[in-house]
Structure formats: structure tokens, C-alpha cells
């Protein structure tokens, strides 16, 4: 991935900045450029999401995506954040067999993967189980 393409999304990936529509109050993540509900009368502003949510579904990846080969097996999940939006993320720092639907997770900052060509290390969010 080209460096500018990665750099543009840093605020969202590092700080979980999504969008909120000033017209309908809906919170969105990933950020959008137009509110799909209000379209032209919508008014989007940056919105920092609370890094907490629950697992909606999960899958244990044994055949990695390109650049993630060193991480298998890894848990891919869809997490519904307390603010409403859902995101796709890995669940990190756990035994894959532990993860269940409904588990509480905290969104944390982690190394994602690496891409050899430009030597850039990629960072972003991962989910971490919140132990009761």
C-alpha cells in the first residue's frame, strides 16, 4: 500500500475517529463523506468513538491475508461498538478458542502487518477481550 494512502487514514486507524451527522445524530465508522440517511442535508463532523464493544461474529483465520502470514492463526471479528457502528478487527492477545459471540472487547492500538516493498510498518486497531 502506498504511504500517502495509509497516512490519510491515520486519524481513524490510530484514534478511532469516525463521523457523526449533525442532522440525524447517527454515528458512523469507518468515517464517511456523506450521511447515507440524510445525504445532502446531512452535516458530517469528526467523532471520536469510545473504544469498547461486543463481538458480533468471529472466525479463526488459518490461511492469512497477504502480509499477515506471521500471525496465523488469528481471530477476525466484527465488533459492535458502544456508540453503535460495527467494525472488522482482529481479536488479539488471546487463545483463539476463547473468543465467543457477545464477548466484551476493548479496542487497542497494535502493529497490523508489514509490507516489504517500502519497509513501512502498519499500525491500527485490534480488539482485546475484557476479562470479567
Amino acid at each position, binding site marked *: 500500500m502506498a504511504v500517502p494512502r495509509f497516512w490519510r487514514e491515520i486519524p481513524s486507524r490510530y484514534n478511532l475517529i469516525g463521523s457523526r451527522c449533525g442532522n440525524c445524530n447517527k454515528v458512523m465508522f469507518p468515517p464517511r463523506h456523506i450521511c447515507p440517511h440524510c445525504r445532502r442535508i446531512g452535516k458530517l463532523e469528526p467523532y471520536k468513538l469510545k473504544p469498547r464493544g461486543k463481538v458480533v461474529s468471529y*472466525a479463526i*483465520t*488459518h490461511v492469512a*491475508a497477504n502480509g499477515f502470514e506471521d500471525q496465523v492463526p488469528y481471530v*477476525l471479528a466484527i465488533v459492535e461498538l458502544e456508540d453503535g457502528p*460495527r467494525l*472488522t478487527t*482482529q481479536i488479539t492477545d488471546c487463545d483463539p478458542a476463547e473468543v465467543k459471540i457477545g464477548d466484551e472487547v476493548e479496542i487497542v492500538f497494535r502493529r497490523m502487518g508489514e509490507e516489504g516493498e517500502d519497509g513501512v510498518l502498519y499500525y491500527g486497531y485490534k480488539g482485546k477481550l475484557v476479562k470479567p
Partner: protein
Amino acid sequence: MRDVAVIGVGITKFGELWDVSFREMIIEAGARAIEDAKIDGKQLDAMYVGNMSSGQFIRQEHTGALIADHAGLVPIPSTRVEGACASGGLALRQAVITVASGIHDFVVAAGIEKMTDVLSGVAMGALATAADQEWEVYVGATFPGLYALMARRHMYEFGTTEEQMAMVAVKNHQNACFNPCAQYHMKVTVDAVLNSPPVTLPLKLLDCSPITDGAACVILAPAEKARKFNDTPILITGTGQASDSISLHSRPSLTSLRATTEAAKAAYKMAGVGPDDIDLAEVHDCFTIAELMAIEDLGFCKKGEGGKVTQEGETAIGGRIPINTSGGLKGKGHPVGATGIAQAVEIVQQLRGEAGKRQVDGAEIGLAHNVGGSGGTAVVHVFKRGD
């Protein structure tokens, strides 16, 4: 709008066709369709080509013109259509709309993908470009991963089992054994599927459709002119297409594809039929869970009962609603851009009564369902024997 008929179909062998080029494949499928329609190539007016990613697979774009050129069809207009794995279905729909509108009479809808000229890791990466690169692939999602998320949630909400998913693979491999153009002529058992290597659990290797080379072609004509070419023209009575968010996490449900339900609603309405009227269907079984969700979303059974009706044999040839008699993407193979056209080829052969050992007795109305990505695009067509 004019009624539209299929007057000719052609398809190549599906598989790892290392000795055949992109150009040879599309010419072979096209020549068979022209021969089947008994039409002179000079009569053809326009062409649509479904192709997902020749740029990534063979480093060749601009394949609309390339194909018209190599088929000896210049100067007719030739347009490539892209909607990930639904590219073929979208090309068919564009051809239907073109004939129905009266702009052209004899229109080719073709589909092709040459996937095995690159290593399988490269092919997987190319397919993943149909998912959201910034917010799915970036975090490590693969296509099997996205469908595995749907599968896990389907198991959670409805009690669907891995055995029931495996039964889709068993049935589709069984059907593929009777299809000469299928990639696999190899039966599998439930145990073999369950014990195949993990890809993204709960999906194992034999839950996944393969990487395939192949091409397919249909020729459309206005219904009133169709009988001059063919004694059993097959009418396309309904077409529907819908879009949804490209990323799975942005959709309210993980267990239903809204693009499928919307496309089906439009196609059923146009055809004036409902799910109970359909005699057989080709559905987009890129993964076994996808077939279970498709038969639910198309209305062939209640939501959540896809696994149960599959287990009870209702979707087998001879069952209540035979699904993927061709072998589906799973058994016949999945050359992504060709798949939507190959589905149409199967339905036409079935409605003509030319499907050999996989023939569904008395089939009069068939349906084809083609999905792009994890459900960002879906397209549905309804076909009817035109007696």
C-alpha cells in the same frame, strides 16, 4: 419493452487450463454459442463481457475491444462489465436491457476469467480487492474470512451446523460429476469436508469454491425473432439487481444478503412469479454457507432453515427445489467473471431438456443468482421455457 429470449449458449471446460489462453477460451465459448444459435456472426449487434480482473490476473485491461477483435466482430460495440464475482450476471443484465429496449437485436453476453496464470496467493489477493481494502483487508480479512463471519453468526442465530454446510459441498460435487464441463468429477463425503484443512474456521478447504479458468457465452434476441433460430427459445422474464455496502460490517445483518433479497424482489415482480413457481435454481455458492443463505434469501425456504432443507435433500436433483444442478461454483468451478453467464447456460440447458444425467424433469421456470464480493452486488434472473 420487448420480450427477450436466449437463442444460443456456449461454455468451455472449467478448470486449471494451463494450455489455453484468455483469448482462446472466450473464442471457444463464443463459437459454441454461435453454432448453438445457428446464427451468422455478422448478424450480431453488440457484446457485453463480464470480467472481474483481467488486469490483476493476466495484466491485460481493455478486454471488451480485445475480445471483439479476436472474435472477428469489430466494429460492433463491446463493453466490459465489472461487479466482482457478479460481473457475468451484470453483463447478462446489460444485454437483456439492451435487447428489451430495442436498441439492438442480437446481443452477446459473455463472461470470462483466467485465474491460474498467477500463483494462488496472488489470485487470493486479487479476489480480496472486491472487499473493502481500507477497512476489511487492511485488518487481515480474506474472502473466506468474511463468509466465515457470516457462517459463525448463522450457526449462532439458527443452529446451523458445520455438517449441514458440508452437505452443500457433497451435493454440489455429486451434481458436478454429471456435468462434462465441471472442474471436479470427484465426490466428497461429509467427513472429508469436515476434515479438510482449515481456511478460516468454521470454513474448511472443501467449503470453498476453487480458483478456476473458464468462459461462457449466451446470445440474446428479441422473443419475436427467436424462433427463427431456435425451436426452444428460453425467455428471460425477469431481471433484478441491487447494491449494498461493500463492507460486511456496515450491514445490519450478517445472515442475509440484502442485495439478494432486493434483486430477487425486482426479478420476481418483473417475471410475475414467486419463489414457489421456480423449478430449479443456480445460486452463488462461493462458500457452502453462501448457498444456505441464498436459498433462504431467495424465498425457497424460511430464514434459518437453509441447513435443515439441505439436510433433508430438498435441494438435491429430484428434491423439491433442485439447487446448483451444474455443480455450482463449488463443483463446477468459479472463474469469477464467467460464473454469472455459466449459471445462465445451465438454466437454459435444463429448460430445454438438454441437461443429460442432471436433468430436472419437467423444468419450466428457472432462476440464476450471482453475487459480487461479500454481498455488495447481487443480480437475479428468471428464465422460462417459451412454448
